[in-house]
């Protein structure tokens, strides 16, 4: 039982990071129908930016303030990165064939990844060990650290906030409208370009939180880690039903838990392959993901 619960905790931790990153994929896909392959690399970039800020301010600020400032400034800078990405690589291709934008996204991914390598070098960079006090709770043989609790709580809060934003605010409603029908949204007086930029801003900022968690929890960051996290998060978004925000959250969590249980109960050598087998099975039986594209129904 402890093993089961421990695996659940393991899975939820990585799952919330996947979910945060997956949200960026799913939101952009929602409005642009574009797989933003550069999103994972943006997340990697945010981890580096976060580290720089952390090192600059370490010792100057109190720990709580340090973490707060690091989070906020990293989110802001990464969001700007998202805006630049949209402007430079995607907006010029808005009317081009869809696959051209995919190539552009792959190109952007290469630019960011190699840019990180040129600036910070190919060696892994390492987050300081005690940004968050290294406290570990032992709940009857199930171990959970303060950092893990932070990851879970902050992710959950952000996801709820995003859900409320998208469902309860004017801009959020506009965002959903753009995802359904951009021309009709224009007829409502919605500035679709602005909504798209907002989408990139939110997606990148959430990704930045994911990147910081990777740095603070797993500590080692590498210039090419964007691919693995990006791919997993993207798969999470697909599993949940791409374009669907609760779907991305569910997909991320499920992927994390599933990964943990495969490694734990079946075979670690095959965990990656089995994860994708699951994806393929879901695709065969539910071609638009678990939650799918929301069908019209009475509420």
């Amino acid at each position, binding site marked *: 039982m402890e093993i089961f619960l421990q695996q659940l905790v*393991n899975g939820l931790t990585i799952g919330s990071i996947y979910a945060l990153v997956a949200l960026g994929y799913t939101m952009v896909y929602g409005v642009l129908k574009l797989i933003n392959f550069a999103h994972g690399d943006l997340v990697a970039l945010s981890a580096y930016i976060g580290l720089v800020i952390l090192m600059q301010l370490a010792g100057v600020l109190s720990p709580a303030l340090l973490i707060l400032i690091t989070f906020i400034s990293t989110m802001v800078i990464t969001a700007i990165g998202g805006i630049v990405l949209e402007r430079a690589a995607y907006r010029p291709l808005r009317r081009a064939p869809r696959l051209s934008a995919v190539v552009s996204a792959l190109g952007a991914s290469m630019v960011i990844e190699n840019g990180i390598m040129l600036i910070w*070098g190919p*060696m*892994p960079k390492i987050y300081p*060990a005690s940004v968050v006090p*290294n406290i570990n709770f032992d709940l009857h043989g199930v171990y959970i650290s303060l950092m893990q609790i932070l990851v879970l709580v902050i992710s959950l809060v952000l996801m709820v906030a995003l859900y409320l934003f998208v469902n309860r605010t004017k801009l959020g409603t506009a965002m959903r409208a753009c995802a359904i029908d951009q021309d009709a949204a224009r007829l409502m007086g919605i500035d679709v370009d602005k909504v798209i930029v907002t989408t990139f801003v939110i997606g990148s900022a959430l990704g930045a939180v994911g990147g910081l968690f990777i740095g603070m929890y797993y500590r080692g960051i*590498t210039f090419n880690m964007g691919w*693995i996290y990006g791919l997993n998060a993207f798969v999470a978004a697909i599993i949940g039903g791409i374009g669907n925000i609760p779907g991305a959250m569910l997909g991320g969590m499920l992927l994390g838990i599933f990964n943990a249980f*495969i490694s734990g109960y079946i075979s*670690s050598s095959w965990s990656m392959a089995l994860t994708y087998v699951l994806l393929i099975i879901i695709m065969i039986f539910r071609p638009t993901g678990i939650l799918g594209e929301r069908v019209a129904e009475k509420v």
Partner: protein
Amino acid sequence: MKRWSLVGLLAVVVALLFTVSVFAADVIKIGVQAPITGKFASEGQSIDKAVRLVVEQVNKKGGLLGKKIVVITCDDEGKAVKAAICARKLVNDGVIAVIGSYTSTCTEAAEPIYYRAGVLQTSDGTSDTLVKHGYWTFFRNSSPNSSEAKFTAEFFLKKQHYKRIAAISDYSTFSVNLTTAVVKDLKKMGGNVVYTGKIVSGSQNFTPILTKIKSYHPDVIYFGGYYTDGGLIRAQMVQLGMKADFVGGDSNDNPEFIKLAGKAAVGAYLIDVPLPEMLPYPAAKKFLKAYRAKYHENPASIWTLFNVDGLRVILYAIQKTKSLDTKKIAHYLHYELKNFPGITGPISFAPNGERIGSAYMAYIIGPDLKYHIVYREK
């Protein structure tokens, strides 16, 4: 028609690029085949820097046999396909010897090409398969997996008396070979291996596999992969409240391991030949000083130094034989060179190109976050 003229222009440019060949001069060319970009870029770049430093020193003293040495570097990106291309390029550039590559996979992919061209190759690759082909051109400058495996098994059973052993590797050639060899030797010596598994290098989240291992109640986890993963595995073991020891194979021997594991590094064991700064030999100290002076950093790892030794024996053999005939040089290295004072210890080669003798040691990381020797080969 317009597009064809574009292509024509392109063709001309290509043709020009192809025809520009390296003009011959009276120099000795040494190749470096290393991962300058990609996952192992830091190691590759360090090897390249070190080779250039040694060559610079030799050239300053007037070169070799009265000739200047020129270094030609080729980036194999740590990929087998590129390694083969690199090998052909270096052969074509007329190098007499090649240092590299860093990974066993790339070394192995390039080996037959150097062999057919009669170009000497020296690599730190530890995979046992590297010397299996019996190519006379190949010289290993580090110790092979097999001797590390044997040492590890002895350390586990004779010194630590582990009763339940878990072993994990990643998917790299090197790691799989080393870990398999360790497990084999352990079993041969009667050790009880309760779990073996693999991790995906770089995936960062190892808690699921560790949680699973925990249920086997091992008293030690052996990890035969790289420090980037090893440091995290160690940290996550501690976070999961695991009491088992951690023993890392040679590739965990990197200062970054301690940084990654943080406080959890304390008490971890590593098995390797000595660290650069722990090398007792004066040549080593001298070299490290020069390296730091020139590049303001430490070499990426001990592997850089092995390669430097590979280069140094080849240069030494050229001087001794007063010849650029690789057959003669190889013969000298195989049969005449005895206990050359390398910076990683005395160097001699077996007829299959294997470096004779090993200097493996087991270290523990103490509360001072420094290495302390706990066991060495008798």
